[in-house]
């Protein structure tokens, strides 16, 4: 038996289960958050019913409405059900606000019944409304939290994928490698870049590694340090590191920041860097038909 002293709201849900379900669904429809475009009628019914059923089971397992805490073990089923519903809805593209609205729409059907039941006993009715309202609020908050957690996982996954995608080492020529950097260069990525580049140097027996920063938006002291460390590590491996794609703006920034690039070779474009690299590995480029191509 549920703890009947624990609130009329609950009693109403249990006694009038099917009617509450229908009213709740009506309510969702009125609020325009039913999303029949994303879910079939049966699915909506199923979600709503399983939610309410889990709620009742929670009470039976000893959950208290008066001191409602979703963390309590008796609410395990309700948490799981809410979690499933949230995940399902996010998966189909329901925004966070509508997700909370879905839960909050439960208030009105129950409140209406409380009003019918208590009539003129306003004080008792208010107590019940406050009690039940705060429970529904907490449930809505929970779905929002789940929503955020789910989103964060997506972001995390995408970040990992980006890390993998964004550091390809390309062999430009025999013993000449390049790694085009795009976007921002934080410590994690800098480490990734360095590892990939050094491994590739060993694999290709490269003598020149061009780190191209054309696609790097901003260079601050930290990014500059990362680049110089990469250059230092490349040199320790016995290869030469060229930093190319240094725009006029970035060159100014580096000087203004007082960063000492030491004897690291820098070039404004990957083209001039490649010319330097060819010289290092012993190639010259000549135009067919005689005259040597002029390079700056």
């Amino acid at each position: 038996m549920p703890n009947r002293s624990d609130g009329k709201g609950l009693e109403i849900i249990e006694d009038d289960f099917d009617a509450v379900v229908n009213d709740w669904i009506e309510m969702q429809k009125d609020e325009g958050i039913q999303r029949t475009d994303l879910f079939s009628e049966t699915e909506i019914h199923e979600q709503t019913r399983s939610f309410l059923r889990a709620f009742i089971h929670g009470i039976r397992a000893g959950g208290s409405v008066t001191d409602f805490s979703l963390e309590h073990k008796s609410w395990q089923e309700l948490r799981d059900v809410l979690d499933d519903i949230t995940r399902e809805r996010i998966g189909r593209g329901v925004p966070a606000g509508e997700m909370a609205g879905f839960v909050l729409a439960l208030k009105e059907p129950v409140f209406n019944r409380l009003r019918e039941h208590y009539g003129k006993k306003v004080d008792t009715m208010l107590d019940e409304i406050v009690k039940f309202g705060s429970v529904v609020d907490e449930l809505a908050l929970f779905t929002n939290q789940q929503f955020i957690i789910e989103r964060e996982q997506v972001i995390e996954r995408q970040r990992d994928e980006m890390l993998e995608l964004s550091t390809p080492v390309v062999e430009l020529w025999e013993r000449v490698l390049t790694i085009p950097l795009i976007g921002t260069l934080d410590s994690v990525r800098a480490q990734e870049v360095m590892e990939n580049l050094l491994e590739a140097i060993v694999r290709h027996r490269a003598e020149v590694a061009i780190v191209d920063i054309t696609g790097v938006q901003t260079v601050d002291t930290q990014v500059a340090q990362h680049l110089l460390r990469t250059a230092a590590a490349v040199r320790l491996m016995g290869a030469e590191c060229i930093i190319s794609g240094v725009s006029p703006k970035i060159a100014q920034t580096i000087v203004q920041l007082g960063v000492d690039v030491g004897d690291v070779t820098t070039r404004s474009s990957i083209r001039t860097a490649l010319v330097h690299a060819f010289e290092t590995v012993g190639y010259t480029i000549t135009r067919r038909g005689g005259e040597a191509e002029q390079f700056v």
Partner: protein
Amino acid sequence: MSNAVGIYAVEDVLLVSIKDDITDSDVIELQDGLSEEVVRTGARGVVIDISALDIVDTFVGRIFAQLSGVAKLLDAETYIVGMRPAVAMTLVELGMTLPESNMALSVSQALRRIRANRTR
């Protein structure tokens, strides 16, 4: 000298191979032995192969830097070759970029560079 280190004279270049179980005292011995060997053979180049080394700490790093300096005073060009990526990253973390030492990817590349510099 212990067998963690081997010094071989190839033409006018001394090849130094280091095995992964080298101890700190071996490293100090190497410093003595190598400088004597450079003078004895009149070598013009020294190539130290560290490709077997998984770990290089600041002590060993410093000795390598010193080896280059000593050999230079005795008119021999020193190359440290075959550093592993992990070792390079660690040394950079430690701030040891060995600015005075010449680095090369492989023994043959080092030999090529020594020859090229000699004929210049």
